[in-house]
Every structure is written in structure tokens, then in C-alpha cells.
């Protein structure tokens, strides 16, 4: 195959690639200088890893259970106000996470009606693991909705119509045909959502500065000890994300 456009796009695109890859490589070469296992075995680091491993899967599951049906509706139906719904779906994506966190606080914070009732019932919505889940879900859920929607959009509607005509109702058709055929896109969306959730920082800082997750712990360590102190936790985060991505695909 002849490279269309010759060298120009390759050179321009190459710059960006190098800019993406360089920090990654520089960071990995740094690993040797830090006492990775030592720092990871401190109680603070252990707690952060545990909290992240607890919250991110829950957020991902919540986003998937509610997001995949929404994606299907967006791919298959047209209704009045659809553009508005689409706007609401990208809102958390476009919103800076700190602002998203601030908004969540105004909705479920300690001094709002919802937050007060929940706290009274013993399940505080801020400054708790539940708060972390709320922040992560808000920020990460659009990924699974958008990706799964593209996946459903790529499934020929005739295949679903054939299933209906062969005697299956809409739910059975969704389960037997749409879901298996959009499987790849949905899994990709779940992976992105998980990666975004476990790395969530801005909104988590606002909604649940405590208990610490890996990203918030990294920030605190950085303030206290500079770049070398954060290498171990950052590596742990990177490792978890890569393992999940590889396992899913």
C-alpha cells in the first residue's frame, strides 16, 4: 500500500505520538530509583489500593447496568427531546471533573435534603466510599453509553427484525441478537469506564477527599515528598488498569 499524503502526515502525527510516549517511557525508567514494594506496603498505600479496588468495579457495574440500556435506546429509537438527552449524556464528559464534583456536592452534599436524609440513615453520600462511587460513576458512565451506542448502531437493524419475525419479543431479541453482536463495543466501553473510574481525581477530591483512593493518595504524597514518592502508587494504578484492559479484551 502506498502511504497517501506521503510523509507530511506521518511527520506531524509522529510528533504527537512521541509526545504521548515519551513521558511514559521516562516514567518507567524512573522506577529503578524508587523503593516500589517498600512504599506500597505502608498502611496508607494499602488502604488507597483497597479503596480503589472496591469502588471502581462498583462504579463500572452501575454505569454498565444503567448505561447499556440507555445506549440501546439512543441507537434505536427517535423521540422528542432526543438531542437534549444526548446533550445530558455528554455533559459529564465535557464538564471539568472539579466542577462535576462541585455540582454533585450541591445535589447530594451534607447540607442538601438528599444528603441529610442519607447521612441520618447512616449512609453518608460524601466523604465515604459511597461518595467515591458517586463521583466515579458521574464522571465515567458516559464512556460506556457512548461506546455501546456506537456498537448498537453498527448492528444491522434487519437482524433484529428477523429475530422478531422468528417469534422473539423485544427483550429476547435484545438478549439473543443485539447484545452478542455489539459485544466488542460494549466491552471496550466498560474498559474505558473502568479506567476512567479508577483514575478519577478531580470530582473525588471534591466529593470524598476521605477515604483516599489511589489518585488522591498520589496527590497527597506528591505534595509531601515530590515525584519519586508517587512512582510506586502510580505504577500500581497503571498495572491495575492494564491488567483489567488486557483481561477484558
Amino acid at each position, binding site marked *: 500500500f502506498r502511504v497517501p499524503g506521503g510523509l507530511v502526515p506521518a511527520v506531524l502525527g509522529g510528533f504527537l505520538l512521541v509526545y504521548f510516549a515519551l513521558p511514559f517511557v521516562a516514567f518507567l525508567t524512573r522506577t529503578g530509583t524508587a523503593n516500589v514494594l517498600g512504599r506500597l506496603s505502608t498502611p496508607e498505600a494499602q488502604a488507597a489500593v483497597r479503596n480503589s479496588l472496591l469502588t471502581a468495579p462498583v462504579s463500572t457495574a452501575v454505569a454498565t447496568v444503567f448505561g447499556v440500556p440507555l445506549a440501546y435506546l439512543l441507537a434505536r429509537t427517535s423521540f422528542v427531546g432526543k438531542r437534549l438527552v444526548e446533550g445530558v449524556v455528554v455533559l459529564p464528559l465535557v464538564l471539568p471533573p472539579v466542577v462535576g464534583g462541585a455540582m454533585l456536592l450541591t445535589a447530594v452534599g451534607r447540607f442538601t435534603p438528599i444528603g441529610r436524609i442519607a447521612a441520618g440513615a447512616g449512609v453518608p453520600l460524601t466523604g465515604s466510599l459511597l461518595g467515591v462511587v458517586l463521583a466515579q460513576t458521574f464522571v465515567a458512565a458516559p464512556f460506556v453509553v457512548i461506546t455501546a451506542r456506537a456498537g448498537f448502531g453498527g448492528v*444491522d437493524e*434487519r*437482524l433484529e*427484525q*428477523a*429475530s*422478531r*419475525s*422468528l*417469534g*422473539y*419479543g*423485544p427483550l*429476547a431479541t435484545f438478549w*439473543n*441478537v443485539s447484545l*452478542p*453482536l455489539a459485544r466488542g463495543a460494549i466491552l471496550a466501553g466498560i474498559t474505558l469506564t473502568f479506567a476512567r473510574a479508577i483514575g478519577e481525581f478531580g470530582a473525588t477530591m471534591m466529593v470524598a477527599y476521605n477515604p483516599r483512593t489511589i489518585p488522591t493518595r498520589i496527590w497527597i504524597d506528591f505534595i509531601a515528598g515530590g515525584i519519586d514518592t508517587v512512582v510506586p502508587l502510580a505504577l500500581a494504578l497503571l498495572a491495575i488498569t492494564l491488567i483489567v484492559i488486557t483481561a477484558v479484551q
Partner: protein
Amino acid sequence: MRLEIDALSHRYGEELAVDDVSFGIEAGELVALVGPSGCGKTTVVQSVAGHVRPTAGRIALRGEDVTDVPPEARGVSVVFQRSTLYPHMTVGENVAYGLGAQDIAPARREELVADHLELVSLADQRAARPAELSGGQRRRAELARALAPSPDVLLLDEPLSALDRTLRIQLRDEIARIQRETGVTTLFVTHDQEDAMALADRLVVMNGGRIVASGRPRDLYESPPTPFVASFLGRANAFDATVLDADPLTLRRGDGTVEVSGFKADAPGVSEGSTVTCHVHPGDLSVRPIGTETTDPSIRGTVTRVADVGRRYDVTVGIGAGEDLVAEQVSSPPAVDDDVAVAFPADRLHLFDREAGRRVSLSAV
């Protein structure tokens, strides 16, 4: 009546895609719904299948109104133009899929799958994935899947359009055989008049959202009710003329006259002086040197083109007033620029009232 479509209309936004369409199919019949692309036939099929909710009108199956019944409860199987085999299932699982929705014992289900794979000669491909099949095999697998649940009505929506001509003729014959063997009531939708005429017991011709003709293929071909049907089922081959005399029929074209001796025009409204459109199928025309003795009506013209189509010659003759006639000739074609007479048997002339577009019947005197 197995399937009855009654006053069906459908709008997409402002556009009226189907306009007051009514027809029925008897049990065991194979009816072809034909018309050019965009004439609304796919909307009719989708309404019968239940995938489109028509704006107005009624669909009845076995005499029961099913207009509001969802597709899964209609007992109507569909084969679409594009393959809809499920890529994540084997051929056997695809055929079994429709049976799974019914309350059928596993042993009986096995048997039905085997029978239907046998019917379409795919018994050996049972464990294959759809992607491993050839284009023709994929079509046959879809037929088996559609037939396995014993549908009341089988809808075939342009099932041959994506295929090569050779494969297409093969599959056409196969569909005819399968339909004869299973006796399933079938609505076959196509824009290809040849496929339709080869397969169907009866044609329903649509144009611009309306039914413009319906009847046996041979009847419609031999006595087309409108110029559109004449050129759609054959090939556009018409000229305008003025009636000089209705009995015996004599026509004037420019400064020549065409005597259709032995025939008179019946219809009221066609009288001396009215303008008519004349249509003759290319196969009914013959090109002769001027002066050949004949009692057949003929028109003078000049050969403008001779195309060697391999199995025959298509001779285009300019007959003045910007009009052309094409004659299909098996052998010894004339040369370009020859002055010739284009003759046709008097009973092969199709006459239409030019204003109303209605057929004017001719009868022997």
C-alpha cells in the same frame, strides 16, 4: 384469503410512500410485488411483517386483523435483501433459532432443522459459520431459517438483488421448487421484472406508492393496462400517433399512415383525431427492406444503430419526431443508415389513450 392488505397508506414525514394499497394472497399462492426502486414496495412488506406501523389501513392474516399485533406474534417470516444470518451462530443454530421461540420438543426440533437443511441442500454445512458460506449458500440458509417455524406467510424482500445473474437464475429455480414442495404462501418483492415473471403466479405492479396493475404475468405482458406497465415489463418502445379512423384502425404519424387492417379500436373516447400512444415489444418488431410485400402494419424509418448483443441484434430505428423504436432481430441485421420498414403483427400493438393513459382494446373486425 391468507393475507389481506386493505387500504394501506404510509407517510415518512411529509412524503407519502404508500398510497391506498389493497391486495390479497390466497393460501399457497406466490405473488410478486414489483416496481422500480422507491415505489413503496419495501414499506408494504415491512408493514406486513409488522416492522413498520402504517399510517392508515389494515393488514389481516387468516382473516384476523393484525395491524396492531407485534411482529413476533404474526407468524410471518422474512428474508431480506442483505443477509441477516446471525454471525455468532452456526448454520444449524440459525435454522433452529426460530424453533426455539416455539414450544417444540428438542427431538422434533432436531428433526425440523435437519429436514429444512436437507430441503435447501445444506445438510453438510450445518456446523459451519455463516461467514464460511458462499453468497448462494447464505441465501439458502436464510430460506431454511425462515421456513423452519412453518410461517403462515413467507416474505421475500429482494432476495436475489445482490446476486450475479447466473446464481440468480439458479436460486430463482430453487425458490420455485421449495415453494412448490412446501406450499408456503409467499409474497416476493423485487424491482426485477424478469425474476417476478419467472416466479410468480400473479403480479402486483406498484409505481409511485400506488398499485398500477395486477394479474397473471402473461396477461400483463400481452395486454398491459398502461404504458408504464408495457415498458416496465418489456422495454420502453413507444410512439405517438393520431387516430384517422377507428374502424378499421388507421393511424397517422407525421406524413405517413399506419393501417392496422382487420382491427378496430373499441373504447369510447378514442375517435377520429384523438392522440394515442402505441407500444410494441421489441421482440414483436421486425425490420424489413422497404417495399417488401406484407399485410402487417409498418412504419418507415432509418436505422440509427445496430448493437450486436451476442445472442441477438438490437436494431434501433429512428422514425422521426425524435422517436426511436428498437427491434430485436436474431439474424441478418440491416446496416446503419438503411431506410427500412418496421413491421409488427397487428394483434401485438398496444394502444393507449394518451391523456388518460388507459389501454384501448382492439378487436378483430
